[in-house]
């Protein structure tokens, strides 16, 4: 495990999974709901950016901005057009909303395929500097951006949750929708903010990760599953928990194939999912409440 190139890959993958998990975490904390459309949000961020640059020759920052706006619109539509109405009609039942958002996942993928086509598009790097070689390790600019921006995202999110009024309201609403509503807290507004912030983080993650191996319309499903598993592993006890979960999955993704062969990470992910769902579904970090 001394190969630094592998550690770099693991950290990069971990940061990507961590950002997806953070997006899941925010919606779970703010709306008490697992939004499986996080993967397609990330896909839309990366794919729309690439398509705009390639098809219309837009600058990468302009294309990225448009893509983030498109993703935010999708997040708003998910909450206002799907989750909220379904939850209202189904009362306390969570299953109908989960099924509805799973349908949103597939709908976004199909829409992306129709609009952008099905072939893989090259990701567009936001960086303008070239790769850096340190000893035997080659560091791509996209890797630097992924890691740095992921850390900044977690720091900013942790600050926002802990020290801002909206962040504290997010936690309050997530603890109990009903109690928050009785207290007169703006539940619907907080839920929408959770969806928007999560959509932004997911889109950003997709834009940053796309240069690594390209992006296509069907990328969203795998990313949804990876992000969800990272959130489950990390737990919901801390805003940093998704990053820990993501890093663990990143290590599995890179080091298991290194030691056990090409597809070992698939089995490793399966084993981790089984262990955590069976024995520690609350994850590694659990929020404790003083009685």
């Amino acid at each position, binding site marked *: 495990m001394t190969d630094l190139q592998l550690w770099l890959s693991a950290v990069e993958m971990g940061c990507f999974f961590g950002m997806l998990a953070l997006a899941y975490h925010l919606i779970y904390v703010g709306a008490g709901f697992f939004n499986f459309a996080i993967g397609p949000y990330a896909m839309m961020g990366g794919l729309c950016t690439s398509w705009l640059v390639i098809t219309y020759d837009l600058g990468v920052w302009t294309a990225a901005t448009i893509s983030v706006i498109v993703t935010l619109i999708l997040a708003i539509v998910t909450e206002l057009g799907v989750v909220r*109405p379904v939850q209202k009609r189904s009362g306390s039942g969570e299953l109908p909303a989960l099924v509805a958002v799973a349908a949103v996942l597939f709908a976004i993928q199909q829409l992306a*395929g129709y609009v952008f086509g099905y072939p*893989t598009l090259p990701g567009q790097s936001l960086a303008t500097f070239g790769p850096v070689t340190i000893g035997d390790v080659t560091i791509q600019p996209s890797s630097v951006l992924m890691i740095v921006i992921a850390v900044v995202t977690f720091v900013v999110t942790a600050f926002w949750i802990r020290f801002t009024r909206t962040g504290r309201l997010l936690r309050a609403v997530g603890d109990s929708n009903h109690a928050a509503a009785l207290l007169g807290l703006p539940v619907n507004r907080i839920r929408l903010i959770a969806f928007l912030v999560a959509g932004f983080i997911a889109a950003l993650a997709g834009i940053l990760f796309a240069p690594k191996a390209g992006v296509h319309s069907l990328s969203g499903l795998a990313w949804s599953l990876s992000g969800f598993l990272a959130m489950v592993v990390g737990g919901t006890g801390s805003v940093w928990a998704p990053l820990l979960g993501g890093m663990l999955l990143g290590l599995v*993704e*890179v080091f298991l*194939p*290194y030691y056990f062969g*090409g597809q070992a990470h698939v089995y490793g992910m399966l084993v981790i999912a089984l262990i955590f769902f069976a024995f520690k579904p609350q994850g590694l970090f659990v929020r404790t409440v003083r009685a």
Partner: protein
Amino acid sequence: MAISRGTTARLAAGLAVLVLAAAGCGGKNGGDEPTDGTAKGEPIIIGMDEDSTGPGASYSTIAGKTIRLAVQDINDKGGVLGRPLRLVVENDESDPTKVPATLQKLQSQGAKILLLQSGSAAIMQAKSVLSQIGLPAIAPTGVTATLVDPPNNELIYMLANTTADWSKVYCGAFEAANVKRLGVLTDDTATIAALNKALLGEMDCVEVVATEKGATNASDLSAQVARLKNAKPDAVLVTSVGGAFEVLAQNTLAAQMKDTLRFSLASIGNQPDSWKLANPGALEGLVFMGSLSTDNPRTRELIDFLKEKNGKDYEVTAYDAQAWDAVQLVKLAIEKAGGPDDPKKLNEAIQSIKGYQPTFGQPSFTISFSAEKHLGADGLCGLTLIEFGADNRPKGPWPTYQPPCEG
């Protein structure tokens, strides 16, 4: 502003309808279908199984587009025996389980002859189906020799040199470059698994010191490349259907094994859209199995034609050339048979084609068929080793070795 429950529900329903309509409208075929041009009379139906969305899409869509252009060109010049060719297209997504239904659907739409533009594993499944439905078929970009070997090979044909010839060319290249230890990085598709078995099984000229596999949709191959590096090969051969996997493989190899000679199959060299996916300079020095030579006047004519149709920046590939020639061979066979309606006569007409000069390969390269010879290539001249330059584009023939025209 509060949104009423009824309005929200209507919004959601309307959006759902839009999305479903959009999903239903898109993604089935690779492009616009040809018109009848100046040809009149009852159309001659050609069925094409084109993988436009599966793992073979990266090369099948290139060939599919040129097949459509070739059909349109024939129709614009009066068709075949005065009748227009009409293309009906289905998609098996290179999935062998979907092939029987796909081919039967093409037959039900009136197809008289089939073009199989899909992954090799799917085409293998097609062989037995062809025997049942009795239609001859050409696999324009097929390269696996077993596709045209018995059993069930009576109705299937391929154009280009197969992996059996590739192994001779690679061995010549390895000997010229003093490569004795080979590492292989491969994807997990059924097509490449079959190809590896055929190709690597014939290459006893080198010792394969490591074979590493990655998923076609992998996001990271650094572990696999690190394991290859540990085996200390003299060269690495990447075997994949191309697309994002191949580019990720080359990016990773360029970063972690930059001084190691790299070879590839025909895939990435014939997928210009993939070149843009690669990191700057990552493809430099990569040697791939190509088959286009601008010494061939027919290649130059095809390049001019396709650049006129697709834009001057269009990169012509072997897939284009083989697709073009497949349609010309269909036209020739129908003319020799006097019509398309007797599958047995059509099949015999294909087998009677001798010395056809294709738009790929060296100038003297020809294609011939017979009852015993369902692989068209006459000799190794259909192949050439091409090297990528620092701009991630093919720069020309690899100076170290080229396959000889005889043999």
